[in-house]
């Protein structure tokens, strides 16, 4: 699915290259789907078509997450089948298919994005790097890692696990 970074290096030990390439695939698989979902989420109600998703993926990942562009469509189809996204085809012109995140998809995305962010922050010291969560922009549910945008903060409970979050928000001075 992904164009592997390691495969670009010429004249390498084949065994090493094969092993590293397999590992790269494993790491990239879930990340690619989540990144695609993130792009679709960014476009909100305007929706976005396949080609634009592939362009944005390259641009927004410093050209590191290089997916074989044809494989974006099976991923989109699967997300649509799972009701995470919805699609509409342009009635005129190039009749491109625009993808939108569904309400259900948004909930899933917020949770997965929160989980991935917290996990990345947690494992960062293992690789001697630092990752800082944007705590001033988002609140991460302490019970389930769901990412809650502070701009839209209305509920007192996490909409994924139902955890009561008002006290924690208050402690952090996030309630105006």
């Amino acid at each position, binding site marked *: *699915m992904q*164009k592997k970074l390691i495969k670009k290096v010429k004249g390498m030990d084949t065994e090493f290259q094969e092993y590293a390439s397999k590992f790269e695939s494993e790491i990239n698989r879930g990340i690619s789907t989540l990144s695609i979902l993130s792009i679709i989420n960014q476009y909100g109600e305007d929706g976005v078509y*396949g*080609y634009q998703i*592939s*362009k944005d993926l390259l641009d927004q990942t410093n050209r590191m997450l290089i997916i*074989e*562009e*044809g*494989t974006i*469509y*099976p*991923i989109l*189809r*699967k997300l649509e089948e799972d*009701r995470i996204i*919805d699609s509409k*085809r342009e009635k005129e012109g*190039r*009749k*491109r*298919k625009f993808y939108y995140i*569904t309400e*259900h998809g948004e909930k899933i995305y917020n949770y997965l994005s929160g989980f991935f962010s917290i996990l990345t922050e947690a494992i960062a010291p293992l690789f001697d790097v630092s990752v800082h969560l944007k705590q001033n922009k988002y609140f991460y549910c302490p019970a389930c890692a769901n990412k809650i945008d502070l701009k839209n903060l209305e509920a007192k409970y996490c909409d994924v696990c139902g955890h009561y979050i008002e006290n924690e928000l208050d402690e952090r001075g996030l309630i105006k």
Partner: protein
Amino acid sequence: MNENSMNYTVREYIKEVEKRLPEWLKDKKEHKEILADLEEHLWSKAAELSESGQPDENSVKLAIDHMGTPQNIAKEYKRRGEPKYYITKELWPYYTKALGAVFAVIVTLVVIGLIVSFFTGNGSFESLIGGLFTGIQIGLLLAFAIVTVIFVALSMEGYFPEDFKSKKEQQLMKELREKEIKEGVTPQPVKKPLKPFIKPGETIVGGGIALIFGIILLSQPFPTYMLRTDFIAILRIFGLLTMLEGTLDISRGILGNRRHNTHQALHAILIPLKLSVIPLIGILMNRPDIFPWFSEPWIHVGISVEFYGLYRGILAFVIVITCLTTIENIYNIIKIQKYK
């Protein structure tokens, strides 16, 4: 590379992708849209990669490289369902049901065989019990292997149970799902779902049994030294025909309630295949002397003259049944026409 040549390169690439798409997807109208989206993407990419902003020879080639190989694209479509021991979680309940049904049939057949052998006085009690266990073991092993191979293949292709449903049923399910998303509730079907023209599970199981039976007749893993060589040859031909019939039935089961034309073609092939058994029965009718007769102490070759009438009557009945089953195939060809 001129415009025609670029078009040709793109068309060939798209054709190659189409060829490799999984069967369940090729059957849906949606696959044409998928190919159109890929082509649109490819041309946009070629334009982006060209210095002039218009696709050219190099940019088309580069764009195809960026798209990925047709194999990889198809592989992603096949990556469907939650893996569970090489068979997806979605197909697992059908797999266990199919195994259960085939096992039950095999055990029943072997037990019936044992009872018949017991009452005809063939062999000692010990040898019959031994035969029972050997028969069950071989039968179960064969059935397990065949059913597992079929379901692993289906899982690898990314089949879901709903892919075996007719297009109308799939459409109805899609409408219901859309309604469910819109209204946030699970609605009840507005009309009764269409009755499927084939029960895939049963057909696959039936085909599997026929296949196993055919393999047994063809390979003849039983003592044949007492049988006449011409009778053994007839058994082998009959086994081969049964195997072919079983394979076609399995194919029909895998196709499920879709690909109406292929179903009709398979039924049409089944008719001459079934009818080709009639000459074999004809030979047996004319040659009662080669038919093994179960009597003391084991097998006596050749029917006694006083039973010729009964023997020929039974075989004539088998011919009538065979003809009736071919009428069923013709009926199915006509019936499937209505589903198109």
